[in-house]
Each structure stands twice: as structure tokens, then as C-alpha cells.
């Protein structure tokens, strides 16, 4: 007689098949996109031979350079500012006596995750239009940075808060017992232990900002093309494998950041 065991979902008939199909559907298109970036022909549907030429074309493309520069300026600034805001918010919501409205504040910070992005995009656009109309103010690329910062905050907030909640509060008590003022206890104990959470939050914020399309498309003015916008503009014309090459570069940057975030998370779990 077989030993009674916990149900193992892997043993269910068809489970493996479904899992393999899911993974194929997810990754085959991406794989094809990457493969065609090496196509020596000029069509993205007809394979001719192997070349790295399209990467060369992309790197020499001034529009690509401009878009990449805009993307970096916006993403890096938005990441730094949103991570600082998220860190302060997380500390203000975990290291204080419970205050009225704490639950509401938590909701407000995380609501952007639930609101459809197109709504946020339209709202942001109207907001900037209103400011421009009423006060004649236009911050140029600052508009995009501001918009990105705002929607990055909840993404940066989540891992930082999780890290703060996991932290043993006795450590801060022990620091106070050993003559550390509240500021010193924060600087010497809380902050160093929080760094993995902050790094992880920053990496998430960067990814979200780096590949944002909807909000950027609506808010961006002339000369403020980011990489996702550039790719979108290119595919409306006859496509060459150059776009595959650019997409692959973007994908690699994303993967790099996700990996860094994951590795940091794993190290802190040790």
C-alpha cells in the first residue's frame, strides 16, 4: 500500500503540460524578439543570417541616444526622490505610536497601485495643463520627473516597510539602553539594517519608471521622448531589427535590476 502523503500538485495529470505551455507562451515571443535582433536582413519577420550590425546601428542612432539620456535622467531622479519619500513614509508609519488615520495613510500611499494607470495618466496630464494654464508654469522634463516620482513611491515603499516590520525592535531598545539618542539609534542601528530594503525598493522604483509608457506618453512634451516612447514611435513605421536590438538592450537593463533586487532580498533573508 502506498504511504499516505500530502497532495503534491506536481503529480496531478496535465500539470506539467499546462506549466510548460504557460512558460512557452510567456517567453517565446521575447525569445523571438531577441533572436531577430541578430537578423542580417532588414525585416523582423524573415530570417536571413546572423549579424550584430543592428546593435551598431542602434548605438550610433542619435534619437536613441537622446531617448536613453531622457530615460536615465527621469528614472534616476525619480528613483532617488521616491525612495527617500518612501523611506520616510515607512519609518513614519512603523516607528511611531499608532495615530488616528494610520490605516487611511497606508491606503492612500498604496492606492496608486490599484488605480488604472490610464486614469492616473489623464489626471496627471490635466493637472499639469491646469498649472500651465493658471500660472503659466511648465517644468519641462521636470513634469515627467514629478509624475514618475509620484507613481514610484508605492513600489519603493513596499519592501522598505516589510523590512522595517521584520526588524527586531529590541535592537533599537538596546541601542537606547546603551546611551544612543533616538537620532544615533536610527543612524547606527535602524538605517544600516534597513539598507537592503531601501536598495530593493529603489531597484523596483527604477524598473517601474524605466519602462513606463502610459503616463509618459500623455505627459511628455516635445523633445522629452523616453526609450519606451521611442520604440513605440518606431514600430509605427516599417520596422527593422534595430528596434529588436533596442528592445533587447532595454530588457537586459530590466533583468539586471530585477536580479540585483532579488540578490539583495536573498542576502537579507540569510
Amino acid at each position: 500500500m502506498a504511504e499516505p502523503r500530502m497532495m503534491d500538485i506536481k503529480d496531478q495529470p496535465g500539470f506539467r503540460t499546462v506549466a510548460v505551455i504557460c512558460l512557452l507562451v510567456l517567453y517565446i515571443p521575447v525569445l523571438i524578439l531577441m533572436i531577430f535582433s541578430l537578423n542580417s536582413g532588414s525585416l523582423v519577420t524573415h530570417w536571413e543570417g546572423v549579424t550584430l550590425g543592428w546593435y551598431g546601428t542602434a548605438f550610433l542612432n542619435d534619437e536613441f541616444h537622446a531617448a536613453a539620456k531622457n530615460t536615465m535622467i527621469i528614472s534616476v531622479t525619480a528613483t532617488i526622490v521616491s525612495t527617500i519619500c518612501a523611506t520616510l513614509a515607512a519609518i513614519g508609519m512603523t516607528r511611531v505610536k499608532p495615530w488616528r488615520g494610520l490605516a487611511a495613510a497606508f491606503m492612500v500611499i498604496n492606492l496608486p497601485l490599484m488605480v488604472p494607470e490610464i486614469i492616473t495618466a489623464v489626471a496627471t496630464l490635466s493637472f499639469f495643463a491646469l498649472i500651465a494654464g493658471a500660472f503659466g508654469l511648465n517644468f519641462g522634463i521636470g513634469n515627467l520627473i514629478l509624475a514618475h516620482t509620484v507613481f514610484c513611491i508605492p513600489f519603493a515603499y513596499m519592501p522598505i516597510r516589510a523590512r522595517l516590520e521584520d526588524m527586531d525592535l529590541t535592537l533599537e531598545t538596546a541601542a537606547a539602553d546603551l546611551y544612543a539618542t533616538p537620532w544615533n539609534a536610527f543612524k547606527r542601528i535602524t538605517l544600516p539594517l534597513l539598507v537592503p530594503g531601501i536598495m530593493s525598493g529603489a531597484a523596483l522604483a527604477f524598473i517601474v519608471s524605466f519602462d513606463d509608457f502610459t503616463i509618459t506618453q500623455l505627459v511628455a512634451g516635445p523633445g522629452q521622448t523616453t526609450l519606451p516612447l521611442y520604440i513605440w514611435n518606431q514600430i509605427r513605421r516599417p520596422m527593422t531589427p534595430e528596434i529588436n536590438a533596442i528592445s533587447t538592450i532595454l530588457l537586459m537593463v530590466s533583468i539586471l535590476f530585477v536580479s540585483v533586487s532579488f540578490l539583495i532580498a536573498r542576502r537579507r533573508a540569510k
Partner: protein
Amino acid sequence: MGIAFENRVTAPQLPSRPAYGDNQTGTHLPTRAGSLNGVIVPEQPGKNAIEVRGVRKVFGTGENQVAALDTVSVSIRENEFFTLLGPSGCGKTTLLRLIAGFDFPTAGEILLHGQDIAPLPPFKRPVNTVFQSYALFPHMTVAQNIGFGLEMLGKPKAEIEARVTQMLKLVKMEALKARRTSQISGGQQQRVALARALAPQPKVLLLDEPLSALDYKLRKEMQIELKRLQHETGITFIFVTHDQEEALTMSDRIAVMSAGKILQVGSPRDIYDRPAERFVADFIGETNFLPGTVVSKKSGVATVKFASNATIAAGYPEGFDPTGEVTLVVRPEHADLVPDPAKGTVAGTLANIVYFGTDTHYHVKLDGGENFIVRHQNSRSAPVTYATGAKVGIQFEEDAARVLKD
């Protein structure tokens, strides 16, 4: 929050009578005469290190109010190994946290060498704590952990280094000073936690059940180690435990607590031999309870009559006036079996014999219906052997019985 953020704590010059407080921003650590490794004679012999006066601590509000401490007063002397002993929830940890400054009393005063420290935050009190979970800083080495308190006090680097080396030697951890705290064993973490709390030479060291996470053998070792450290440093130790054996073996004096109150303060011998109340007798060690009637009393000794008409002289605590029906307490080792029931003060049937190696417990069902345990130390010479079911008598040693408040 009303706490000012500061970058550095400075140690101000001490006035003759130091004021820990209010307007002062610094913690001060009194300098101590004598070396750390020698036994230090207290500056003010016989003075109290800590005086707790009428302290109440209430948690919660409205209907959910719970008094964790119900108007507690106790004095802890300098250089003393003082233990707060009681079951969980008795308020012993709350009292420790109030002395450390992690909580603030609802009412009352806590004096440290005469100054009220109750309103001060923990970083302004020359009192350090060894936590139950050790609370070592995981991102620092053993040496950095030990030096943390001195660093926060703004001591010069050379002084910190010298002191850390001294502390490492004191707790025998020199070889592991560069390790992360996650790379050392539980017993070693315990030693680091002790060294870290002792390094700033606190006036009082608080220990919150520090041995509870260790296994039996290591615990026994650390008990001796703690006594040695207390002796060598001359610092007042306040030790919290629910383990009565730990309390009896280590303490100079013990305060037995229950339900937010201190029931009795005394030396281990006082507490064990002359418990003030039934709870204390029951909580510390094994005890037999016997019903009886007071027939007369004279200068602290009552004559109590059992149902069998036998009488016994029993002491009672000061301030207690036993009358009528009372409960007598007798420790199992203060009684002896006799084969002839008629020769015992009380008599019964031997129900069970339990062998413990060092001693044997005889469970006797008394004729009155109560259970009574007699403990007999085993020796090489085989004395009278008893069989279960036999009728036996029980004799009491002189002063064995006491009348206690229920």
C-alpha cells in the same frame, strides 16, 4: 515626541550630588574607584542603589486597564545580586523595564542613588540591560557590539579599545572579537551581551531572564559565571527570573512577586525557610500544607492542634495574627518517617515511593485525607526500608512547621 535629537551624548562633569536630568542633555557615568578586576568597595557602603517608591504601572485605558504593577516599593542595595522572582505576568519584567527606562511609571518614583530617574529616557540612565533575546547588533562584530555603549558616550577611541579588550578577557571571548554575532553560538552570544552591558560600567545591571534560552548544562555554567562577574565588577545586578532554583542559588536577596505586587523580600534562606505567605511557600520549592486549629500562641509561636489531637509548635510571620482554622506548611525535607504510626505527630498510609537518585520521596496519604510528601536523602548505609501500603508515622523537626496567611 518631546525627546530632543542629539548627535552626541557628552559626559558632563559631576557635581557632588549628580542631577541626572531634566536640563542636562548628557548621560553621565560615574567614575568608580578601584579596578574592574578587583572587588570594588562601594563608595557609600550600605546605601541603596535603587529605591522603588510606590510605583504603579497601568497598561491600557478605560475598561481595558490592567495594573501590571500595583503600588510596589522596594530598595535594592549597592553591590547586591537582587532577584525579582515570580510566575509569568507577575510584573517582574515590567518593573525591570521601568528601571531601564523603556516604560514610564503611571505613579511613583524610582531613585538611583537618591535621584528620581523615572522620567528620564533610557539613554540618560547609567543603567544597562542584558536582554532575554540578547539583542546583539547583527551588522557589527563582537568587538563593535561591546564598544557601542562607550562610543555613544563619546569616549576616546583608545579608551574604548582598551575597555573592549578588557571586557573580552572578562567574558573569555578574546578569540572571537572579529566575528559577526550571527557566527557565534548561543552561549557565546550570551557572553557578548553581558560584556556589552558591562562595558560602560553601569551603576546597575539589569538582566531579563538571560539564561532561559540556554540548555541545562550551559545554564548552570552561566549561573556561576554571572556570580563571578558580579563579584569581580562590584556592580549591582537586578536579575529577573521565573526559575526558583536559579533565584535561590544566585541571589543575595530575592523579591517574590505575584499579580503586580511584591509579596516578600529576603535572603534565599529567609524566603525558603520563613515564607511570609502561602503563595511564596508554594512557589519556592515543594511544600506540604496541613490544616489545623490554633489553640494558643505566645511571642511568635503558635500551638496548633491537628484533627488527630496531636499538637505542634509553629512559628508565624511578623504582623500576622493566626486564629482558629489555619494552614500549616512543612517542607518535605523537614519531616521524617517513623515505622510506628503511634510515634508520629501525624500518621498515614504510604501511597508511593519515588526514587530520585540523590533522594527519595515518600508520598503519604494522611489519616485526615491530605497528601504529605517526606523527602529523605539517600546515603550509603541503608536505613529502614518501607513498602507501599504500610502504616507510617511522620515526625517533624523542630521549627519545621509554620502558620501562613492564605
